[in-house]
């Protein structure tokens, strides 16, 4: 425990700015992953325990595309699309076979996919960790706000994640596609009876959720080291985010991601050993006092 350090940090604007931005990038990565988890859960009523693997594959794919093309924007876009396609294949060939069965079967399918993808990553990219380094586009002098130093890439990451989140929310809330998806979430067979091919929408939702994870991986690649198994710890945090924010709620995922991101960044100064504990404490409190999450609908539980 070093609360003095935390108080000292809160006393200086430079430290606040630094911690705020690092908290925000943690939060935005979490948001992209958690919104995918929550979207897939909200519509298909399955928990994708393999979502972390999609994030990992996104990061590795971005790394490879960047080596090939040298352009970060192309590789980030390519990684998101590639992971989205992979997600659709995963849904069609594996997950859709266990929709009707109990959670145990879904869990086992995801467990198998996590094992296979971790091992495939080791075979293709090797077991040692890789790092992408700062892409050429962002090798710019750092920006200064109130004495705090902020790398331009962090700004890009935060803005990009927020833009993706906003776009997702618009698509779900404002378009015909979104209407059908929300209807299918409430009553799939009914939507199907109206002559809409629900399976296509399920696959599309899974694809979108996967592409979000792929985009998160691509955004994380320059600032995180790439290791096989990197997806799992972020998966756990994204679960915590979905529980706090409420299952099925994208707005909830956004708010909860920022809470967790800031808890992590400020906590790492004040109580580094207890950061995980504090995150779980927040989650436990939410579960006890508002079990459906901050923005969740009670019946979704």
């Amino acid at each position: 425990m070093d609360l003095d350090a935390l108080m000292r940090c809160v006393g200086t604007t430079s430290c606040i700015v630094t911690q705020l931005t690092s908290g925000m990038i943690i939060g935005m990565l979490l948001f992209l992953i958690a919104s995918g988890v929550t979207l897939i859960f909200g519509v298909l009523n399955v928990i994708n325990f393999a979502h972390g693997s999609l994030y990992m594959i996104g990061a590795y794919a971005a790394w490879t595309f960047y080596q090939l093309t040298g352009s970060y924007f192309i590789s980030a876009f390519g990684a998101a699309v590639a992971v989205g396609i992979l997600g659709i294949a995963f849904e069609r060939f594996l997950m859709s076979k266990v929709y009707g069965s109990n959670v145990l079967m879904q869990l086992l399918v995801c467990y198998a996919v996590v094992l296979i993808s971790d091992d495939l990553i080791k075979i293709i990219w090797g077991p040692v960790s890789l790092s992408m380094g700062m892409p050429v586009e962002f090798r710019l002098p750092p920006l200064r706000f109130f004495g705090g130093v902020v790398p331009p890439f962090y700004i890009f990451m935060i803005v990009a994640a927020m833009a993706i989140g906003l776009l997702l929310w618009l698509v779900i809330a404002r378009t015909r596609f979104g209407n059908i998806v929300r209807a299918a979430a409430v009553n799939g067979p009914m939507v199907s009876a109206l002559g809409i091919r629900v399976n296509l929408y399920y696959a599309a939702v899974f694809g979108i959720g996967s592409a979000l994870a792929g985009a998160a991986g691509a955004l994380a690649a320059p600032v995180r080291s790439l290791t096989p198994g990197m997806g799992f710890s972020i998966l756990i945090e994204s679960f915590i985010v979905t529980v706090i924010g409420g299952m099925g709620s994208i707005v909830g995922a956004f708010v909860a991601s920022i809470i967790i991101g800031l808890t992590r960044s400020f906590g790492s100064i004040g109580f580094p050993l207890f950061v995980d504990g504090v995150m779980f404490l927040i989650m436990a409190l939410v579960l006890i006092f508002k079990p459906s999450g901050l923005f969740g609908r009670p019946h979704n539980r």
Partner: protein
Amino acid sequence: MTGRWRDLAWAGAGLIALLLVPVFGAPPAIRDFIMFGMAYGLLAMSLNLLIGYSGLVSFGHAMFFASGAYAFGLAMQSGKFSIPAAFALAIVFTAALALIVGAICVRLNEIYFAFLTLAFQMLFYNVILGWVSFTGGDQGLMGGIPRPKFLGIDLADRTQLYVFCCVAFIICIAILRQLVTSPFGYTLRLIRDNQERAAFLGVNVPLVKLTCFVISACVAGVGGILLTLFVSGAYPNFGFWTTSGEAIFMILLGGSNVFLGPLVGTVILRLLNDITVTYTSHTELVLGIVILILVLGLRKGPLDLIAERLENRRQAAAQAVRDAADAGAAETRKGGS
């Protein structure tokens, strides 16, 4: 013979069979295999009390395996406890941990339950990794676990350790068997099949689930203690999520509807592991593919499938006998008229 006495007789027979293995001069590798199998077998068997009998799909059961292992190992390393005292202490600690986690989790629905147990397990794992001064971090509990003599038993001796583990293992299995054949066990099945009906019948559903969760955690803790005694150390991967995943897979492999199914699954998985390791270093890949084939191809565990086939055949045979009897009766009636 009533069911209870028959079960006890089976337990005795199982114990004698296990104890006879070293007598027949089995190579140490086989004895080691059995010891590992017993430790992981208790993990899988106790998890099946949750998954198979109560419908509580826990993805964090390895937490209690690790908590038993670490609590026992740390108590022994402190030098203040005898083996039985440390054993009891580890179980009490595991029960307390399960009480806290269970109290938060048992009221939730299936999906929440699965990933919250997983999340708590990762918290526990991170505590083990992070608290280096106490747990040794990713190195695990180093320096061996002291095994002082108690009541004339010396667990530093491999044979006595083996006997001790066999007895503890059989006692745990017998307890589980008593539990699932008791009214409590049938209450668990009732909750699994129809929670609302159980509540209407006056069953305190959360309390029964919590009790089941704690008992199951304690048995998993014993498994962890046996493993610690055997490998003379405790390692963070005892509590890693892959260990929970393996335990679930053992249940699938063996079948959750047969009482000893998870144990069979444990043996199959350990054999599968040992075989693939000799051919390739990519055991996870092989394991993953096997899981996919089983889940998507067979849809259930091989033993469950065999049990179902046998049951179907028995029913078909009974039906045939009944048909024959009916036909005979009809014949007689016709002849009589």
